[in-house]
């Protein structure tokens, strides 16, 4: 579904992040990109989102070269992605409103506009229907991220990109939302890529894990994860521990 071919990206200040970087992702897969801050993992996500562009190389998604944000891709950031002046319902409807604003032009919105427009359904599914009239400033961090997820899923994306989506949340809320992400992935048939610095989050959410060490990245190191999506009490402890240690070594942590 996603192909990166010989992608080279350098920051304007001259730091090289990716050099002839290749990566391939199949449909309906679930990926975690693991790396420490400053390793370029957010840049990778922004490249996939069509928000920044490589100096050379090619990124194509669903057979089309990426030249702008794809209407079928959903993006969820760590925080601050919600409009502070719009309540939960209005925030969740924002994508639909943007699409109405342009009409189905194939550029800002898909040509075949098939969205269910079912904002109430998504508010309910994500458990935020009772705060639908509240503003982001009145919500907890977890409710804010649920709103951000609802806003994206309303548009029925085929690809979900998440940048440290749960790292500002407390442990319990984080686990809830991680499980919810998995449930939604099983229900809704989309591909997702979650970027994180948290090894345990990467192991829980990534069927495949791309590890990024220090830039520049010539090619990614990919680990297939046997304990993907398994809760603490159901997974094989030894396998988990070995994987954890391997990932930590790859990250260059002591």
């Amino acid at each position, binding site marked *: 579904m996603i192909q990166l071919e010989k992608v080279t990206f350098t920051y304007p200040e001259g730091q090289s992040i990716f050099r002839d970087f290749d990566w391939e992702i199949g449909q309906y897969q679930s990926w975690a990109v693991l790396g420490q801050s400053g390793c370029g993992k957010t840049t990778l996500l922004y490249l996939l989102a069509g928000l920044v562009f490589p100096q050379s190389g090619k990124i194509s998604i669903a057979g089309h070269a990426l030249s702008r944000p794809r209407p079928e891709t959903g993006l969820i950031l760590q925080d601050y992605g919600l409009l502070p002046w719009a309540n939960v319902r209005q925030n969740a409807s924002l994508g639909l409103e943007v699409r109405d604003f342009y009409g189905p032009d194939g550029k800002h919105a898909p040509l075949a506009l098939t969205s269910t427009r079912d904002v109430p359904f998504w508010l309910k599914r994500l458990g935020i229907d009772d705060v639908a009239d509240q503003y982001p*400033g009145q919500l907890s961090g977890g409710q804010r991220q649920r709103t951000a997820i609802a806003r994206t899923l309303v548009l029925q994306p085929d690809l979900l990109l998440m940048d440290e989506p749960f790292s500002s949340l407390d442990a319990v809320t984080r686990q809830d939302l991680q499980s919810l992400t998995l449930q939604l992935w099983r229900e809704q048939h989309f591909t997702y890529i979650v970027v994180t610095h948290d090894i345990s989050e990467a192991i829980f959410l990534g069927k495949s894990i791309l590890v990024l060490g220090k830039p520049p990245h010539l090619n990614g190191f990919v680990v297939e994860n046997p304990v993907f999506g398994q809760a603490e009490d159901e997974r094989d402890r030894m396998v988990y521990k070995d994987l954890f240690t391997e990932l930590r070594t790859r990250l260059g942590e002591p």
Partner: protein
Amino acid sequence: MKRWHVLWALLALMVIWQVLAMVLNQVILPSPVIVAIVFAQEVINGQILLHFLASFWRVVASMILSVMLAAPAGLVLGQSPKLNRIFSPFIYWLYPIPKVVLVPVVLLFLGIGDLAKIVIIFLILFFQILVLVRDQATSLRPELIQSVHSLGAGRRALFRFVYLPASLPAILTALRQSVGTAVAVLYIAELFATRYGLGYYIFLNGSTLLNYPAMYAGILAMSLMGLMLYFGIDGLEKRWCPWLNANRIQGSTQ
């Protein structure tokens, strides 16, 4: 701020005024009771009302004019770092000029009608709104812009769904901050070649007719006008920016 707090403050000021008037015992500081009687008389015979309306129209007209010109300009500068780089130095040169000094120049070019007075107040409001709206637009979090951009929003939709609603509170804040200055400048503008306006009324009674109670009645009317403008702006904010209020009540940390 509750309405009855304003009344209590008025009462307290009246008491202080009364005490001062009794202590000083001078014609130039009459008791507030006398002023209140004269004020009532002037309202009933319609004298002060005409002056009030003339002044009110000038202030409101210049407010509307400055919002209509400064807000879009501020938004454009806030959105485009390039234009901002070009125009910022100009703003920094022009903004600190006390616009009152331009009164003779404006009168010379625009004559002695309402337009000259409106333009003088406009010159002051314009820069305040311009700078506040521009800063608001530049201070929007990149995460917010990116995530709305990823929902398919191009330049036009970003303007409609992000920049415009984000600048509303800035516009209202700028207006609120400049009510005091606007009224003060109005007084000066109305000293010159006019027969209607509270500035004229105050000057005429205070410096020509030496009718001090009437002069204070005029000052009272001016302060009432300022109060009405404050309440008007607060009302608009409540209506157009309900989220500000909701966040305040909850004492949010955001």
